[in-house]
């Protein structure tokens, strides 16, 4: 009876392991399709298709937001701190949209290398804090979103890409 149970245990665990490997390989094969958006680096490298609806994501570059005072037209630059992507949009922006904020824009790449957005979504990070703390941080010279850590993260990702491309 003991031996039978042991066998059952191994069969069950083996089954689950096989299923896990199958799912893992599938996800690995689909990895580029599961990413929600292209980063500006990928777009500059030409990985994103032209004249088809795509999503691009990154941070809104500081000082890049230009609004047309007579209409809802707005232009801004999405950056991953390595490459920039120019975005033009006409419509209402989400409440969290601001310079230095992460965004995902949905739209078509235009031949001039800019993107005409149909929808702008705001991303927010996992750092929540009361307004006073945010203000105190800012006065102390830190930025609440901690851009440097993010830039370092993007840099690491690029290094990993370069390493895997070099192989």
């Amino acid at each position, binding site marked *: 009876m003991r031996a039978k*149970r042991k066998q*059952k*245990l191994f069969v*069950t665990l083996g*089954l*689950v392991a096989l*299923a*896990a490997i199958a*799912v893992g390989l599938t*996800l690995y094969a689909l*990895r580029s399709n*599961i*990413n*929600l*958006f292209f*980063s500006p680096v990928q777009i500059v490298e030409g990985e994103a298709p032209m004249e088809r609806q795509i999503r691009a*994501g990154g941070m809104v570059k500081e000082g890049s937001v230009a609004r047309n005072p007579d209409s809802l037209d707005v232009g801004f630059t999405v950056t991953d701190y390595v490459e920039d992507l120019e975005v033009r949009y006409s419509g209402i*922006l*989400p*409440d*969290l*949209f601001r310079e230095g904020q992460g965004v*995902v824009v949905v739209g078509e790449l235009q031949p001039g290398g800019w993107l005409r957005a149909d*929808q*702008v*979504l*705001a*991303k*927010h*990070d*996992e*750092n*929540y*804090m*009361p*307004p*006073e*703390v*945010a*203000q105190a941080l800012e006065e102390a010279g830190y930025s*609440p979103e901690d851009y440097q850590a993010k830039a370092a993260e993007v840099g690491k990702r690029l290094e990993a890409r370069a390493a895997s491309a070099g192989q």
Partner: protein
Amino acid sequence: MWAFIHKLGSPKWFYAISARLQPWCWGAAVALILVGSVWGLAFAPADYQQGNSFRIIYVHVPAAFLAQSIFVTMAVAGMIFMVWRIKLADMAAAMMAPLGAGMTFVALFSGAVWGMPTWGTWWMWDARLTSMLILFFLYIGVIALRGAFASRDSASRAASVLAMVGVINIPIIKYSVEWWYTLHQPATFSITSRPAMPTEMWLPLLLMVLGFYCFFIAVTLMRTRSEILRRESSKRWVRELAAEEGT
């Protein structure tokens, strides 16, 4: 050790011990959720960017935690049932599935309500949201499988296998925000690192999470007790118990 586990697997013993545990779990759940929600909703500070809509976190995160934990528990119970044939494990697994499905729905719904004011959309096919939706379908599948067989034993086996295989989805949910670019932000709350929010925001969240877990334990104990009586209704100890209660 083995004697204890075998004792734990006996419905009669479980029925007796759970009667003593149950009130404590209910009490802890009610107290923690009450204190946590009043603290979180009324006294915790608002977020510097999102204002008060940030408070949805006090429902969203505990529900999402529970949705995943219940599925893992169900899979472990399924394995215990398949390998050691302990019927009590199967009863518990059957009883926790609807609560898990409900919690998954609460997490998805509160996430949608939160997504509208912050992201600007209530749904996006990003990896985290999609894998959570798959978890919801897995729960529905487990519940449906139990109802689809005439024989209880085959139904239990099928549901256990689906739960064990479906548990692969759990690490995918957890790491989706790290493996892929998503709209959903990375985890706020983890056991291994400092939480990404100050203590006055984080403590009520901790209370809510603990409260939700106590609620899950209490509901599972309660439902498993009635399931024991239902399935073992022809056993002598249940009849004796019923005769005692009747007089």
